[in-house]
């Protein structure tokens, strides 16, 4: 078998790539020959997640909308089988681990183990290709998922996160939690599930990433024969509704009263993606992440200042990519809201970075790439993230990082627009004037 073989530059790793006739893309990152490690990691995913809620179902012609949370519901239901054997039980037999995750963009099924690689891979490919939905098992799952939603709702951090997304996005499904709402979960039917399944769980819309103690040829062989039974054809025509989100937020301020001792704050600054100077998504993401690291990381003066002045007890900063908009998000436990907000806005409007700091973080990132190459699970995760975000594996991160420069960084900073924001505060119901 001749597979595409790609060197991961500067980190002493080789990856193998194969696309089967049915369209499934397989990426394999084996351990180095001398490694004594026995673990292997499978990640079998589909480009279908909570943000894909309106599309033309396979075999139909009309754009159809589905209840929120159905991608996640479907993920739960894939653990049901006609013969009654649960994937959990199957994997337990070899002490292996199986789980699944749904995000806005994708759904992934993961297996980790160190015994019976062949059987475990075959079974993963089998159970994800064998949907079995009944009215009864759908009803049972509604109970479990409503408990999951209830568990989330009991967390004030989650409440702040859920509300900020609702107040930021008018049309994008990012405005609703991945789980959906109690109401939408209860609307999901067996037929809905089959429609979603048949549309998105097809090899040409899926990927398989395998890392660790495996032989690339063997993985391709096992996969080819395991999928042969399912009579899967290549089909690249999926019509999905694309949303155009306005840069204006839906609601710019909301207070929620809850039994909290420390105020939870979420802020989102919505920006037009077209205004950024970098059009290559990989490069843009690198610069935005670099910006977060430089301006809000542990080595930033801003963090030192808010810490020493006791403005927050913890805070996180990141960019969220939502189609045509990019949102700069902040989530924090706030000790002094008015002063923190004032200092933050002042800081955002005067962002500046130094070349020596940029160079230092580049060194850190390159070192981290080398460290990561020791961990098969981390490499698999990175490859999966690449596929989800860019639909390809990025093999030259070290080179891309080396090429980053202060001029481009400053251009990115100049293109940031902090004028459209939404704020959500979860504050104590006993003391609504806390900190003011």
């Amino acid at each position, binding site marked *: 078998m001749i597979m595409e073989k790609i060197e991961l530059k500067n980190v002493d790793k080789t990856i193998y790539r194969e696309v089967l006739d049915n369209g499934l893309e397989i990426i394999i990152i084996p351990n180095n020959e001398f490694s004594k490690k026995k673990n292997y990691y499978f990640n079998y995913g589909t480009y279908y997640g909570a943000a894909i809620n309106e599309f033309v179902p396979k075999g139909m012609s009309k754009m159809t909308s589905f209840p929120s949370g159905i991608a996640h519901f479907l993920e739960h239901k894939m653990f049901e089988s006609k013969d009654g054997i649960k994937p959990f039980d199957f994997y337990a037999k070899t*002490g292996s681990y199986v789980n699944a995750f749904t995000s806005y963009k994708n759904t992934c099924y993961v297996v980790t183990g160190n015994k019976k690689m062949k059987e475990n891979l075959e079974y993963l490919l089998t159970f994800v290709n064998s949907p079995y939905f009944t009215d009864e098992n759908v009803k049972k799952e509604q109970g479990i998922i409503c408990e999951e939603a209830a568990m989330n709702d009991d967390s004030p951090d989650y409440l702040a996160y859920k509300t900020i997304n609702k107040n930021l996005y008018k049309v994008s499904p990012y405005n609703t939690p991945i789980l959906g709402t109690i109401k939408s979960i209860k609307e999901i039917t067996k037929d809905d599930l089959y429609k979603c399944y048949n549309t998105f769980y097809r090899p040409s819309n899926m990927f398989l990433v395998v890392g660790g103690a495996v032989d690339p040829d063997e993985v391709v062989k096992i996969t080819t024969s395991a999928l042969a039974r399912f009579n899967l054809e290549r089909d690249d025509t999926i019509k999905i509704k694309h949303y155009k989100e306005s840069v204006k937020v839906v609601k710019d301020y909301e207070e929620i009263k809850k*039994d*909290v001792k420390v105020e939870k704050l979420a802020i989102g600054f919505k920006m037009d993606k077209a205004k950024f100077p970098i059009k290559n998504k990989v490069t843009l993401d690198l610069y935005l992440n670099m910006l977060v690291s430089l301006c809000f990381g542990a080595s930033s003066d801003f963090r030192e200042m808010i*810490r020493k002045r*006791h403005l927050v007890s913890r805070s996180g900063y990141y960019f969220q990519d939502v189609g045509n908009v990019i949102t700069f998000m902040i989530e924090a436990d706030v000790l002094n809201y008015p002063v923190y907000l004032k200092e933050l806005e002042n800081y955002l409007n005067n962002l500046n970075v130094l070349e020596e700091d940029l160079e230092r973080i580049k060194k850190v990132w390159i*070192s981290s790439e080398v*460290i990561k190459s020791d961990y098969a699970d981390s490499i698999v995760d990175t490859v999966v993230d690449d596929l989800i975000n860019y639909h390809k594996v990025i093999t030259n991160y070290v080179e891309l990082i080396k090429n980053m420069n202060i001029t481009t960084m400053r251009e990115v900073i100049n293109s940031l627009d902090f004028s459209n924001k939404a704020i959500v505060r979860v504050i104590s119901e006993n003391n609504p004037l806390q900190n003011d």
Partner: protein
Amino acid sequence: MNYVKKEIGAYNLHIIKTNLYKTITVKIFFREKALKENITKRNFLSRIMMLGSNDYRTKVELTKAEQDLYAANISGTNRRIGNYLDTGISLKVLHDKYTEEGNFEKSLDLLDSLIFNPKVTNKAFDEIDFNTVYEEYKADLNSLVENKMTYALIKGLEATDSKSVISYRGIGYLEDLEKITKENLYDYYLEMIKHNFVDIFVLGDVDEEYITNVIREKFKINTFKKQPIKALVEVTKTSRTKVVKEKTSAEQDNLIITLSLNNLTDYERNYPLSLYNAILGGGSESLLFTEIREKNSLAYYVSSTPNKLDNLIIIRGGITKDKSIDAVNIVKKILKDLEAGKIDDDRIEKAKEYYTSAIDDIIESPFQIIESYYMIELLGVDDIETKRKKMLKVTKDEIIAVAKKVKINTVYILEGSDDNGEN
């Protein structure tokens, strides 16, 4: 992998030579007898030590120094292991062959500075750092009640036995925080440095003699030799099951059930107990998960964990509002069945497979490797290969014998309700 242990005066140096990693990992453990009043101080100390030292005056300076050492990473953790409080401070840094000569030694100097040269003047920690940690820590302690799962666990253990070490809150206590001053914190620091048991681990592609010399030179620890204490905690006795309920404003109930383990032998604790717990609630194929979640849809999560050294198994679950008693009844039935020997051989086999897979998983992380050797040092448990052999030989009768020694101690339910619990 090649392991050697050296007794260097006040501490043990453990060197694990392996080429599995491009990094060198150093971890220093400090431990002492667990006293409730020291938990908060110890957490405070870890936090303040990670903020800087006399050589790195601010967190920014410290972070930049770590970054300059090719992303050297230093972190600290606190935990209780049976009757011990245990603090681990670790350094992970790329081997010099991937960076530059001398990078590892400079990283060790940084670690050394954080531990042995804290930012102290006039026998007191730096005031600004002290206040920063104080406020952040206070906010964390205040937020505790917001995480219903954690809160329920704390209350469930206190309901089991509020006097015993088993109920000590790992995160610390607000009332103890208020007693900490920058002066008495420094006294405690000296106490820790001088009187704790210390073990130092180094893992990586290293030369034994070189490591011995460099550690000896940099870490001049002079602790007084003391008699080790017993890590194992006495069993929390109970004549009848306690049931404690509390209301909170929440969408679901949080259920905690503690199970006492009476008169286990060391062998039972290290082997059949692990299998018993795996069958009961160890994973997504366990009895608790199958019966409570899959068959009755009463929960999204439910599981059990053995706190071996506490002679306790803890069952935790997020249960549908008002249905906790149903879940408790299912638990009782499961325990009774296990005691009566109603255990499928298949489940025992699965539990054994689970265990041997976990053993093979150890080499996937330098910290797991260090941890397994530390447990041998601290608890005198068998080495990995002996463990594998003994575990595979455990019989069904031995598991049933353990099942007969398991008794429900306390049922604690944090009931979700629409009202605020305080009203």
